[in-house]
């Protein structure tokens, strides 16, 4: 029998992991929902932002918060570049070609990182105390990252609902033909979306580098999970993805403690596969 305290700790760690997944899913989901393209290399872009923060801090001695802000800029630029160089030429291609092109980007980013920075695991060490509540240990760094990622999500929510551009972006995701008739330019909105999605990757990168070590295959570790979160929540459905992130994270974390780390992931993936059959539109989809 497993000590209930371990179980409780697993649940709390699951919530913190859920915050990470929700943050990762946010930018991807925005792009998914608006441009209707799967950036299979999205988490690899996050890894690039993590590298950016790492090098800015360790090599150039920037203070961490400043490097984090720079990472947002790096992310936005990466998002713009990916959209302009890769996505724009194949906007009209079959979806699967778009998937494969970003798959090529995944190969490129991962191996380029190996080539340039080797397979070393790199992290920015932030030594903050661990909080102990009734025998349960919670990492303070993770708590801060969690709080900031919730803030970032609220920020994106307000951007999408309270600003003119945000409203236009939501309109594109609802009907891409109608928006052109309304006098807005979808191409420009796509660019803005890609930049915002990239900036979200930058934020995620800055918050992840203080919890995890970055290495070239970081994207491979979190990428598939991030997709599954987006799909489970319903593509383009931000609120759905938010809850899906916490569900998946709980399965992984609690399953990991009850069985084994790998089996936690196996259970999560199997749940994903089964849910895809039962509720193809995502867990919160209304049945038509």
């Amino acid at each position, binding site marked *: 029998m497993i000590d209930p305290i371990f179980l409780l700790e697993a649940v709390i760690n699951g919530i913190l992991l859920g915050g990470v997944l929700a943050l990762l899913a946010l930018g991807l989901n925005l792009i998914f929902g608006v441009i209707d393209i799967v950036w299979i290399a999205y988490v690899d872009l996050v890894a690039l932002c993590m590298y950016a923060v790492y090098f800015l801090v360790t090599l150039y001695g920037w203070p961490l918060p400043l490097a984090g802000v720079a990472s947002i800029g790096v992310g936005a630029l990466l998002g713009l570049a990916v959209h302009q160089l890769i996505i724009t030429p*194949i906007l009209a291609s079959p979806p699967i070609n778009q998937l494969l092109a970003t*798959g090529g980007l995944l190969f490129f980013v991962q191996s380029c990182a190996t080539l340039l920075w080797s397979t070393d695991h790199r992290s920015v060490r932030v030594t903050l105390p661990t909080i102990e509540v009734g025998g349960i240990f919670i990492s303070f760094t993770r708590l801060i990252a969690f709080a900031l990622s919730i803030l970032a999500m609220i920020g994106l929510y307000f951007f999408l609902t309270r600003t003119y551009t945000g409203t236009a972006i939501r309109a594109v995701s609802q009907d891409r033909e109608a928006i052109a008739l309304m006098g807005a330019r979808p191409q420009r909105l796509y660019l803005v979306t890609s930049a915002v999605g990239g900036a979200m990757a930058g934020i995620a990168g800055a918050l992840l580098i203080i919890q995890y070590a970055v290495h070239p295959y970081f994207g491979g570790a979190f990428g598939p999970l991030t997709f599954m979160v987006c799909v489970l929540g319903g593509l383009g459905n931000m609120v759905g993805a938010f809850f899906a992130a916490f569900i998946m994270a709980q399965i992984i974390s609690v399953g990991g403690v009850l069985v084994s780390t*790998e089996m936690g992931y196996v259970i999560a993936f199997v749940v994903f596969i089964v849910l895809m*059959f039962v509720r193809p539109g995502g867990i919160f989809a209304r049945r038509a």
Partner: protein
Amino acid sequence: MTGRLATWALGLVVLAAIPAMPLGRAQEYIWHVIIQIFLWSFIGNAWSLMGRFGLVSLGHGAFLGVGAYGTVLLWNFFHVTPWLGVLASIALTVALALIVAYPCSRFQVVGHYFGLVTLAVGEVIRLLIVAERDWTGGSLGVSLATGAGASGLWTLQFADKRVFYYVGMAAWLFGLWVWWRVDRSMARAAMEAIGEDETAAASVGIHVTRFKMGITALSAGLTALGGTLLALYLAYANPDTLSGIGVSLRIVFAVVLGGMYVLLGPSVGTALTIALSEYLRIYFGIKLIGIAETIYGLALILFIIFLPAGIWGSLADAWRRRRAAPARTAPA
């Protein structure tokens, strides 16, 4: 047509004669590279059976893994000869493929969604192999326990690489034959119709689920055979080289590079990628790890943008157009 047959015959004779050629000290290595090309081309071919009809699977690593590990573990733990082990693991793989494909087809999981479901399946198999480390050796992989220098028909282990050269070549030709048969069958027309529009296909009386299941079973079974042959050839199986996302994407990449709509497309793509990575490995050694994949990734992006039909697909198109052009102007 006779010219075409003659070209094929000549090509096959040359390929069959390579093991007899005096290639100096590098001959073992050259055979090794060609065997790899045969086996991975076979696997790419199997993938393209589904891929060309819009069933783009990102989880063929799962089928490779089950096939390879099935055979190796049956031998290691129960001393089941690979002759039977192959059949058992193909049956197991086909069962797995059908378990996934049936609901996919019933609930119309297509496009991106099909890709993501198969991706998850590939990860599940890889993680299971890693998790069951008492059996499978975890991420360190597992060797075929035949004892040092074992050789013989019973275990399908041969000290002489040339035996496997012909095994690989036979498998490759078998894969091409299957592709050709499918290409000329009624199933092709049906599958193309399904790929275009499932509802319309069903409305003209095509049994969508049956055709999809059939092509999936065929593709998965062949992939499992390929995985088994790879494991037998190397006498070793590893979760990262035979399962998971990396392998699955690599198969897809080679096929897209060569062209998935033409007979030799997957083979050309595989030969090019393996030749490129071997060349870079020899040329740079371990100095520039990752350079081959960097070039792959870049090439994949450029191909999807500029040459979506693949190298061989585009060449075949151009050739056909050149032959067709005079015929069109002649009868005046």
